[in-house]
C-alpha cells in the first residue's frame, strides 16, 4: 500500500502513466477534503449500485400486483409500505433507479457529443462559422425548456425515450458555449501549432487535442445539470408524459400516489424523497468536482 502511495507521490514521475495516475491521486486528495462532495459521491455510488444490483436488492419485480397487501404502511416486511396495487414501494424505488440512471446516461450520450462538436468547431475554426453556430446556440439557449419538452412529447407521443430526447434537445447549448470558450483559448497555443506543423489534419486535432481539453469543464457542468435533468424527467413523468405505468419511474409513482396522500402518505412520499436525495447527490458531487477540476470558479 505504502509502495503504491510512494509511487504516486514521487516528485518526478518516470512515465506518462505514472504522471497521469499522480494527477488523479492529487485530485482525489483534494476531493476527499470536501465532506459534501464525498457524500454526493456516496449517493451517486449508491444509485449506481442499486441499479446494477436491483434483482438482488429488491425482493419483488415491482410491477406485479399483490392485491392482498394493498396500501400497507411501512413495516419490517415493507420498509416503505405498499402502493394501491400492493406492490412494495421500496422495491419499486430500487428498480426505478435503473430508469433514473438510464435517463442520466442517455441525456449525457446525446448532449455531450453535440455540444462538444458544435463548440469546438466554432471556437477552433472561428470566422463566420463561429458566428453562425453561436447564433444557433443562443437560440436554443433562449428556449423555454419545460414547455418545449412538453410540446415535443405531445408531437412524438408520451414515453421515456421521447421525454429524454425532448430534454436533450434543449440541454446541449450550454456545453457548446463551454467548449467554444476552451477552444478559443487553445486555438493559438503552441502545442496546437506543433500538431499543425506535423501535418495532422484539422479533424484529428479537434478530436484528439482540443476536445479532450474541454472534458473537465464539461463534466463539472454535466454533474451540476444532472439534478435539473432528473427533476425535469420526473416532472414529465408526473404529468404522465414520461415513462408509462407500470414502469416504476419515480415521478410517475408520485402522480399515482397523489390520490392516496391524505390517508396513505407513504405512497407518494418515498418516491419524492428518492428524487430529492439523488438530485442532492448530483449537486453535491458537482460542487465538489468543480472545486477540484476547475479552481478558477471556486467560490
Amino acid at each position, binding site marked *: 500500500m505504502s509502495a503504491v502511495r510512494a509511487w504516486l507521490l514521487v516528485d518526478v514521475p518516470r512515465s506518462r502513466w505514472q504522471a497521469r495516475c499522480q494527477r488523479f491521486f492529487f485530485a482525489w486528495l483534494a476531493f476527499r477534503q470536501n465532506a459534501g462532495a464525498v457524500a454526493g459521491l456516496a449517493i451517486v455510488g449508491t444509485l449506481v449500485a442499486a441499479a446494477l444490483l436491483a434483482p438482488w436488492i429488491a425482493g419483488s419485480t415491482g410491477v406485479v400486483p399483490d392485491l392482498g397487501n394493498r396500501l400497507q404502511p411501512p413495516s419490517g416486511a415493507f420498509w416503505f409500505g405498499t402502493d394501491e396495487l400492493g406492490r412494495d414501494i421500496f422495491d419499486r424505488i430500487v428498480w426505478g433507479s435503473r430508469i433514473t440512471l438510464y435517463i442520466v446516461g442517455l441525456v449525457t450520450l446525446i448532449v455531450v457529443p453535440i455540444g462538444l462538436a458544435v463548440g469546438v468547431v466554432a471556437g477552433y475554426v472561428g470566422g463566420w462559422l463561429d458566428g453562425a453556430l453561436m447564433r444557433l446556440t443562443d437560440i436554443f439557449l*433562449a*428556449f*423555454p425548456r*419545460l*414547455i*418545449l419538452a412538453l410540446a415535443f412529447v405531445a408531437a412524438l407521443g408520451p414515453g421515456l425515450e421521447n421525454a429524454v430526447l425532448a430534454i436533450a434537445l434543449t440541454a446541449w447549448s450550454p456545453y457548446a458555449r463551454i467548449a467554444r470558450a476552451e477552444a478559443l483559448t487553445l486555438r493559438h497555443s503552441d502545442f496546437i501549432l506543433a500538431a499543425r506543423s506535423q501535418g495532422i489534419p484539422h479533424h484529428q486535432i479537434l478530436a484528439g487535442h482540443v476536445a479532450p481539453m474541454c472534458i473537465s469543464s464539461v463534466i463539472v457542468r454535466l454533474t451540476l445539470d444532472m439534478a435539473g435533468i432528473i427533476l425535469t424527467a420526473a416532472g414529465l413523468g408526473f404529468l404522465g408524459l414520461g415513462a408509462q405505468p407500470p414502469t416504476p419511474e419515480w415521478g410517475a409513482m408520485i402522480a399515482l400516489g397523489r390520490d392516496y396522500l*391524505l390517508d396513505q*402518505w407513504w405512497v407518494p412520499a418515498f418516491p419524492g424523497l428518492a428524487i430529492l436525495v439523488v438530485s442532492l447527490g448530483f449537486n*453535491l458531487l458537482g460542487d465538489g468536482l468543480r472545486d477540484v477540476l476547475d479552481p478558477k470558479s471556486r467560490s
Partner: protein
Amino acid sequence: MPEARTGSQLDRNRSTLLAQAPRRVAGTALSLALTFAGLTAVTFVIARVMPADPVLAIVGDRAHQDVYDAVYRELGLDQPIFMQYLRYLGQLFEGDLGVSIMTAQPVLDDLLRFFPATLELATVATLLGVLGGVPLGVLAAVRQGQWVDHLIRVIGLFGYSVPVFWLGMLALFVLYAKLGWVAGPGRIDIFFDGMVEPVTGLILVDSALAREWEIFRNALGHLVLPAGILGIHALAYLARMTRHFMLEQMGQEYILTARVKGVPEGGVIWRHAFRNVLVQLITIVGLTYASLLEGSVLTETVFAWPGIGQYITNSLFNNDMNAVLGGTIVVGVCFVGINMGSDLLYRLVDPRAR
C-alpha cells in the same frame, strides 16, 4: 484642470455611446428576430411531425376525396415546406393561433384568459425569491465559512434538488389539509369566483382596485403557498448567485479603501459592495422570472391553478395541437422577451457593459 478633462471625457463617452446606440439596438433586434424565427421554426416542425392529420380534423373521416383535396389546398399543404412556414408566420403576426378543439374558441382568447393567472403566480413567486434569496446571499457572504453560511448553503441545495410538484403536494397536505393555515387549491374560493370585474385578470390587482379586501385576502391565501413553493428554486438560485457576487466584490480594493476610511461595516456592505452586486443581479432576476413563468406548469397542476401551464397540459391530453403550440409560442415569446429585456437593462445600468 482635472474636472474639466473628466467633463469633456464624459461628453466624448456619451457621444460615442450615442453613435453606437443604433448599432446596438439593431444587434439586439436582430438576435431577437433570429431567436423568434428559431422558436417558430421548432414549433412549426413539431406541428408537422405530429401524427394527427389537420385536414381530417376539419373535414372528418367521411368527407369525399374532392372536399379533402380542396381543404388540403386551402391549408396550403400542397406548397413547399418553406412557403408553409412563411404562411404560418404570417398567421402568427396577425395573432391567429387557430381555434382550440377543446374550448371551440380562438386559442389567443383562451390564452389571454389563462395567462394572467400564471403571470400573477410567477410574479409573486419571483418577488418571494428575491426578498428571501438576496438577503440570505448577502448574509452568507458576510458570514463566509460560519454556521449561517453553511445553513444557507444547505437551504440552497435543498431548493435546487427538491421536486417542486412533490413538495407542493406535501405542503398542501400539511398546511391546508392538516393545519388549515392556508387556503386550498385554485385561485380563489368558489364563493368569490367571478365577483370582481376582471380588469387586468390579476385577481390581487382587480380586487384591490375594486376595494374588495375580503376577496383580496382570500386570493392571497390561495396564492401564498403555490407562489412560495414555486419561489423556492428562485430563492436558492438567487441566494447562491448573490453570495458569489458579494464575495467577488468584498475582495476588491475599493472595499479595503472604504474600510480604511472608516466607513461603518453596514455601509461597506450595503452602500459599497451591494450596489455593485445589484447591477449584476438584474440579469439573474430576469432569468429567474422567465424560468418561473415557464416552470410553473408543474406547480399549476398540483395546485389546480388555472394558468397557461395547466391549459397546455390539458390541451396536450386532448390532442388539441393548436392550443399546445399557441401556448408554447406565447410562453416562449415571454421567456425570450424577458431575457433580452433584462440583458438590455443591464447594459443600460452598468457602464462597464457598454
